[in-house]
Structure formats: C-alpha cells, structure tokens
C-alpha cells in the first residue's frame, strides 16, 4: 500500500511539479498516473523511491514513512521500470535481470532458478537469451526484460514509468496483456505512468488524472469515463469515451445482460471469437467486416451464439450510457 499525503514537489528554480497530492494505492492494485505532458507524473513516481526529494507532505509505504527508511534498502524493495528500459549494455540479459538479487547477496543457484522462472513468465528461453546482450534483443523483448528485472527480487511495490511507451501498438497490446496476466499471479502494488488513455483504461484498477501537479480525479476507469468530475476530465477522455469504455466490458457481460443472436447456419463465411474478448476489440472486428458472421465460443469451443454490431450498440446504449454501474473486467 502506498499513501500520498499532501505530497508536494517544488524543483529548484520554483516549478511546483506536484502540488498537494492525496491518494492511496491499495495493496495488489494497479494505479495509473495519467495526464498531459508535464503534469508531474514522472516526478510523483520518482518521489516514491526517492530519486526525487519530497518538498512537503509525505509518502507512506506499507505504513512506514518513506523518509524514515534507508534509501538503498527502500529502492531494493521497489521494482523500477522506465521507458527506455535502462538495461545495462555491459551486462548479459541474465546479469541485468539478476542485479537486485545479486546486490542482496542471493546464492548462484537461487539466482539461476529465479532467472529461468522469470524468463518463462514472459515466454522467452532463459537458456537461449541468458548469455546475450541487450542490443541483441528486439525492442519488445528488451522492454519485457526491463519488467522482469524489476520483478526479480519479488518486491511488493513496482513503479513503472511509461514502460511500454516506446513500442509499436501491436507489440504494446501484447505486452500489456502479458503483463496483466503476470500481475494476476504476482499481485504487486503498482504505480504506472501513462499518457495513453486506452492503456490507462486497460491497465488500471484506478486512475489518477493529473493536471499541473494536481489531482483532477481519482477513480476507477469506468467511473471516470461515465462520471467525470469536471470539464477537464470530460474533455481529457474525449467525445468517444463511451466507445472507450467498451474495452471494460466483455462479450460475456453482454451475453448476460441482453443475450446473443442466433447462429445462422446458412452463412458460410464465419469466424469465431472468444467470449472473454472485450467489446471494443469485438466492435472493431465487426466494423472491419472480417466475416459475414461472428460466432462466439467459450473455453471448450461451444458455440454460444452470434454477435452483431446492433447488439454492441444496444448494449452500449443501455448499459454504459444509461446505467453507469459497470462490471469489472477479467
């Protein structure tokens, strides 16, 4: 758990980058810091592991004032991932990933086992990549190495500053999914900086929307989309925020609320889609007319029914616009 209490940062020269911020990141949650460039996201994040000093107020981590803790010990207990992955070019992938365990004095065998396990989590072979150097990996692979490096010593808290920002959209989505999958297992308390609204909606349990160093709204993505607290929040998420909110819903919830259409067996050109697919992706698939009919299937490949644009529209209208109580993703 991380608690910000009137946290303020004034840089030398008088810029107040973070101004009286109050909020709490619950244990095991992902909180995304969102807002326009220069609103203080990075500054706020870096105050947590004391890469920036705190000018006023405080930050408490699991009940302890961060200023009362030893700076080095504190940082080793907080995973840190940055946009440009920050891998060290003079170290192999294995050395990079195992830095914190190494600093903490783990045994060789423990380190090797941990390394292989972490590599497995991101679907890379520890055997094959361990001895390589960072420049021998693709951007996406490097970024994932950056993520598991932060996870290496199993820190309870993670700080991630636009960790997927430099990746192309397709790879980014894949890595986001993979990371959410990992998070379901490891349940870290995560502070995640993003300036991408879609990413924030997708990753966040809660979003902190910042402007000029101040919190505009702190809420779940759905609340923020449906009930923006002020004009800034409304405009920030834009006119298509109803559509954006579709990514918070799956076909399954639609099925539970309004049911699916019947499958027309006379149509030949059919593709299938999994019932846990989110509605936003489903909609874009439907709009792209990849097939004449889209059949929904479950884990056991049972054909549950068909999904159509009309159905999504109807659901959007009743469920999202009219009744702003949203179902959790998952």
């Amino acid at each position, binding site marked *: 758990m991380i608690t910000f209490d009137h946290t303020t940062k004034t840089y030398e020269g008088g810029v107040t980058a973070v101004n009286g911020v109050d909020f709490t990141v619950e244990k095991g949650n992902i909180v995304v810091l969102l807002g326009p460039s220069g609103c203080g996201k990075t500054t706020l994040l870096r105050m947590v592991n004391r890469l920036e000093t705190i000018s006023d107020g405080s930050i408490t981590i699991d009940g302890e004032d961060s200023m009362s803790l030893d700076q080095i010990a504190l940082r080793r207990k907080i995973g840190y991932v940055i946009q440009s992955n920050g891998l060290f070019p003079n170290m192999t992938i294995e050395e990079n990933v195992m830095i914190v365990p190494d*600093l903490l004095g783990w045994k060789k065998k423990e380190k090797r086992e941990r390394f292989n396990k972490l590599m497995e989590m991101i679907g890379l072979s520890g055997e094959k990549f361990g001895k390589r150097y960072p420049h021998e990996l693709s951007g996406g692979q490097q970024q994932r190495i950056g993520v598991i490096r932060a996870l290496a010593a199993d820190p309870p808290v993670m700080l991630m500053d636009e960790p997927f920002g430099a990746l192309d959209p397709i790879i980014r989505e894949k890595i986001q999914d993979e990371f959410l999958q990992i998070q379901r297992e490891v349940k870290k308390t995560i502070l995640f900086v993003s300036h991408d609204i879609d990413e924030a909606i997708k990753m966040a349990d809660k979003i902190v929307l910042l402007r000029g160093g101040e919190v505009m709204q702190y809420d779940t993505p759905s609340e923020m989309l449906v009930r923006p607290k002020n004009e800034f929040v409304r405009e920030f998420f834009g006119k298509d925020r109803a559509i954006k909110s579709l990514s918070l819903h799956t076909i399954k919830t639609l099925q539970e609320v309004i049911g699916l259409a019947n499958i027309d067996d006379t149509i030949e050109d059919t593709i299938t889609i999994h019932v846990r697919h989110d509605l936003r992706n489903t909609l874009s698939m439907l709009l792209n007319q990849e097939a004449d009919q889209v059949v929904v299937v479950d884990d056991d490949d049972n054909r549950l029914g068909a999904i159509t644009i009309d159905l999504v529209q109807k659901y959007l209208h009743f469920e999202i616009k009219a009744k702003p109580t949203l179902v959790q993703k998952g």
Partner: protein
Amino acid sequence: MDKWMKFLEVNAPRIFDLAIEHTILVGLAILVALMIGVPLGIYLTTNDYLAETVLQIASVMLTIPSIALFGIMIPVFSIINQGIGFVPAFVALVLYSQLPIIRNTYTAIKNVSPEMRDAAKGLGMKTSQRLLRVEIPNAFPIIMAGIRTAVVLNIGIGVIAAYIGAGGLGVLITQGISRGDNYLIISGSIAVAILAMIADGILLFIQKRYTPKSIAN
C-alpha cells in the same frame, strides 16, 4: 644498406637496452599517472566547480613546451639532490599525461546516459556499486583512449628526458645531433616510433578485449 647493417651490428644491443630504459621510464610514469588521474577524473564528476579548475590546470600543463617543463624540474629537484636523472623526467612525464587521462575519464563517466544512471540508482545500487558495475564499464573505451593518447605522448616526450640525464632512446638522438651522426638520429627516431606503435597496439588490444561487445559499436 651495407652501412646500415654494420651500424646495427654494432649498435643493436645498445638500442635495445635504451628502448628498455625508455619503456621503464614511460611505463612507470603512466602507472603513477593512472593512479592519480583515473580516480581524480571520477571524483571530478561529482564536483563540477572543481572539475573546471582542474581540467584547466591540466590543459595549461600540456601547453608548456616539453623541454621547458623538463628544465623547470632541474632546479626544483636539485633541492633534494635529484636535479638530473630519472626523478625529474619521471615527474614531468606524470604531469604531461594527466590531461588526457583526467579529461577522458571525466568526460566518459559524465557521458554515461542519464537513463542508465537512473536505472542503477532506482535498482538500489550504492554509489560505489554504480561506478564499478555500470559507469566505469560503460566508460571504459573512452578512458582507454585517453590512456593510449597519454602513452604515445609520453613515449615521444620521453626523448627529451635524455637532455636531463634520464637515458632512454633520446640518448641516441641527442648524441646523433651533437656528433652529426645521421645513423644515430634516424635509428633513434625509428625506435621511438616502433615503441609507440607497439605500446598503442597492445593497449588497443586490451581496450577491445575488455570493452563490452554491445557498447563497442
């Protein structure tokens, strides 16, 4: 050609001995210069104000004509009865090599990307760990380039040491000049050049060998 063969037959052992003497003088000077210059260069990265001053002093040092610097050493070291010979030459060479070593170390460490330094701090490395594991390894090629410059510079300037009685290959050249013997002058000069090339080659090999592949670009 015949004359050369004869000359070498007589003088080769002497040229070889002088080359060894030269190497020892320059080698020791470089060793001491490294022990001063590298830590100083690293320290200066933490103190910008001092850095400017020290780098300026080191630059001025390099602009003093070598023969003048050697000359200055004589009265200074006469105080402790070491006015001529090895000691003043050694000290002059140490002073000369400071600029390339300090400047390259300082610049190399300063140029380590801020992201990398940030990541090192964020992962919880202490200052010393950050230096040893991240900053120095990544700065290594540039530091080595400075050392190579210093070595080649010192092998050349070491010739002047003969004038203050410190021996080395300069002896061949000074004798050649005073006796009007071109063979001595030419053989001395070539020996200095070869020595410089060998030294640079060895250092380049070390640099390549210990530069992380991924930053060699």
